């Protein structure tokens, strides 16, 4: 059976394949962390299915573990996810300027790889039905994620609490973000947000995090404007 739809689907699957080994450990960790955070297995699976948002899921879990209120968790999920969604829109734009996805973008916007890969094909114009292609890529990745998360949720019991396996979350975040810090305003953002989040740690309902992010983004934009002006 080699009609258009079938081959487009497998084309998508084929293209997303190299990305999958990268997200499997991430997914397993998210499963383990959900259990560590005190969620029941059912809740953890629910989280994995319903939210399915990679980095933002881990961010949310960090907050849950610190007993933030539901509102803050939701808002943070929105903020972090906003970045994912806005950037996925941006990636499509990037494609008109660049032919290849930078590895930095790929490794960071993990759940947007299905998207990114789709838009790559869109520009190359090789595929008949982009929606089917996207299905091939996205569904495969989703399946890989869910299976891995499931393994983490049920297999995670093997690992004792003392192992602090969830330290892998900040480790992963560090490995993702450091390569992206290449301009002055980003350096400032990174340090400022980090320091403020420690300073504001005891704010009620974890508003400290939102405040840190808000202040550091504003500072970053100001610095950027200043450096732009200096150039001209």
């Amino acid at each position, binding site marked *: 059976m080699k009609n258009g739809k079938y081959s487009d689907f497998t084309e998508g699957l084929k293209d997303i394949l190299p990305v999958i080994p*990268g997200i499997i*450990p991430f997914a397993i960790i998210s499963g383990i962390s959900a259990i560590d955070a005190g969620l029941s297995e059912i809740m953890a699976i629910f989280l994995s299915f319903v939210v*399915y948002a990679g980095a933002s899921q881990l961010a949310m879990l960090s907050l849950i573990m610190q007993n933030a209120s539901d509102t803050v968790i939701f808002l943070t999920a929105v903020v972090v996810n*906003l970045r994912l969604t806005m950037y996925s829109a941006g990636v499509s*734009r990037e494609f008109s300027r660049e032919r290849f996805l930078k590895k930095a973008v790929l490794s960071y916007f993990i759940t947007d790889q299905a998207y990114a890969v789709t838009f790559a094909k869109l520009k190359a114009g090789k595929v008949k039905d982009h929606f089917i292609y996207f299905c091939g890529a996205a569904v495969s990745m989703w399946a890989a994620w869910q299976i891995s998360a499931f393994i983490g949720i049920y297999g995670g019991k093997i690992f004792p609490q003392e192992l*602090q396996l969830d330290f892998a*979350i900040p480790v992963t975040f*560090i490995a993702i973000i450091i390569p992206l810090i290449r301009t002055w305003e980003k350096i400032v953002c990174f340090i400022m947000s980090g320091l403020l989040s420690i300073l504001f740690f005891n704010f009620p309902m974890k508003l400290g995090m939102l405040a840190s992010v808000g202040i550091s983004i504003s500072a970053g934009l100001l610095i950027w404007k200043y450096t732009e002006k200096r150039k001209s």
Partner: protein
Amino acid sequence: MGIATYIIRASFIFGEKYFSKNPVFDKFIELIPVCVLPALIFPAVFMTHSKLDIIGNSPEIIASIAVAIISWYRKNLLLSIITGMTLFYLIKFL
């Protein structure tokens, strides 16, 4: 939550057409991860119980510095994570 996620995702596909002309908006988007992630990283690394801060040679801090250095020089995400966690465990349990 899942529905909200989906709506947000969908709306930005369409919104992008209107916003893409604005360089400040672009920069704003670019700065979001660089501000959100450290807000999660720093407390997790430096505040393991209350505030072990700079002084501490806690396994968290050392492993984090190592991960930062490795990830700066090597593109392989998995390598960075595994090395970091290995170092973390070595310091923690030895």
